[in-house]
């Protein structure tokens, strides 16, 4: 049975596995350094749809179909689908999932959706409430720009700290199994707010949340950093990655050797479009579903922490001059060839 240890961590007894994963990404991501690890990449931002929102839904649909095909199960075998995206009222996920006729709920935790969903999904499997849990997380550069920033054709200059929202969707199938990457524990994060108000510097807003969740996990489980090959944060990008290492160093925890960030590795940072790195639910979801799952399956990564980060802002809170509260959720994962 799932047990709570320490302040915020839940550990699992069953062999909860990420059975399979799939990811679809857009053109810029498909041209990036992780190109070969994505299942599908699209040249057209519209994916043949009439609107960008419909395009994001289509990406999720394709990722779900792909993960079902890989796992050789039908949609009727899914007991629960948990989805997350950035759009108001989670419309990207809703319109994607409606045709699959699955028991479903959406979570909002901004870009930390992927790790949060894995944690919730694992609790479903552990408790016996579900045999197969499907988790998806997505974002689209064009839908996010429109909701949070300016129209795409508006001539504005990006600040050097602003991250590019990843066009991508990742889908994960969770089930009890011994022969796939295992979810061992989850730490649900607390909201941290250090009064950062610049929406173009989300890495700085989210770094304290990531540092707090990683520190809490280590305290709760009494595990040592040396046990892990990789500590992967979600989408802190260039600025946030520097900050999370710095913040943890001040607490006596040096993650600099094992740390990497999905937002740092998804894009070529020399590209002027993405100098500060990537962000969005689709960032950590597509990097994990492709690149990381490959390494977990072939034994290159034996033990890792995946800490997805989310900046909990809205256009309303921004216009009202409020700060950007942030959260980070963490899952401990073991590769399958231990």
């Amino acid at each position, binding site marked *: 049975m799932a047990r709570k240890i320490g302040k915020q961590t839940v550990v699992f007894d069953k062999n909860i596995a990420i059975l399979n994963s799939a990811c679809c990404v857009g053109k810029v991501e498909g041209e990036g350094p992780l190109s070969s690890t994505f299942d599908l990449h699209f040249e057209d931002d519209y994916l043949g749809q009439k609107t960008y929102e419909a395009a994001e839904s289509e990406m999720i649909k394709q990722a779900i179909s792909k993960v079902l095909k890989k796992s050789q199960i039908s949609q009727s075998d899914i007991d629960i689908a948990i989805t997350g995206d950035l759009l108001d009222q989670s419309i990207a996920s809703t319109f994607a999932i409606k045709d699959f006729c699955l028991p479903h709920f959406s979570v909002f935790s901004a870009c930390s959706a992927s790790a949060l969903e894995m944690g919730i999904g694992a609790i479903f499997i552990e408790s016996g409430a579900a045999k197969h849990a499907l988790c998806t997380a997505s974002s689209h550069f064009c839908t996010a720009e429109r909701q949070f920033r300016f*129209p*795409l*054709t508006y*001539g504005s*200059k990006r600040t050097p700290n602003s991250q590019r929202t990843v066009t991508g969707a990742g889908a994960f199938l969770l089930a009890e199994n011994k022969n796939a990457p295992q979810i061992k524990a989850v730490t649900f994060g607390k909201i941290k707010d250090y009064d*950062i108000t610049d929406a173009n510097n989300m890495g*700085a807003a989210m770094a304290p949340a990531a540092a707090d969740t990683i520190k809490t996990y280590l305290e709760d489980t009494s595990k040592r950093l040396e046990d892990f090959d990789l500590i992967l944060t979600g989408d802190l990008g260039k*600025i946030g990655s520097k900050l999370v290492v710095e913040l943890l160093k*001040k607490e006596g925890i040096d993650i600099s050797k094992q740390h990497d960030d999905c937002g740092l590795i998804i894009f070529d940072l020399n590209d002027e479009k993405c*100098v500060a790195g990537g962000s969005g639910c689709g960032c950590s979801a597509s990097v994990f579903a492709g690149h990381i799952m490959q390494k977990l399956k072939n034994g290159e990564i034996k033990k890792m922490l995946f800490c997805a980060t989310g900046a909990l802002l809205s256009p309303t809170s921004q216009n009202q001059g409020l700060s950007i509260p942030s959260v980070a959720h963490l899952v401990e994962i073991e590769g399958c060839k231990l």
Partner: protein
Amino acid sequence: MTNKEYSKLVDKANNKSFVLKDCFFAFFTGGLICVLGQSLCDAFKFLGSSTLDAKTLSSITLIAIAIILTGLNIYPKIAKFAGAGTLVPITGFANACASPAIEFKPEGHILGIGANIFKISGPVIVYGLFSGWVFGIIIYIVNLF
């Protein structure tokens, strides 16, 4: 750690803006747009327009060019390095109206285009008119004496 201490840490980690380079590109492209405007004005005068008509026609032509370049997704690409150079001239205002009109078209002609076309440029119109009103009153009072 206090918010202030963290803010110092963030300042250290931040990427720096290239102020001089940005200013140069803004000056260069902004100036180029003005040269184009003046050339158009001279050309219209050469073709027989009065000075007032030539000024109006050159503004309209610049607006038309900016809207076409916005529709072709070229204007934002120029703006990426031009910054304020493409924002400040009349072409920037045209871009600020055309881009939401394109973006919100899927939401319909009334609630999409109609309601959003002045989303970015609206404040410029509101405060442009308001400052006109304020300065009008000031000039009126000054003229009384």
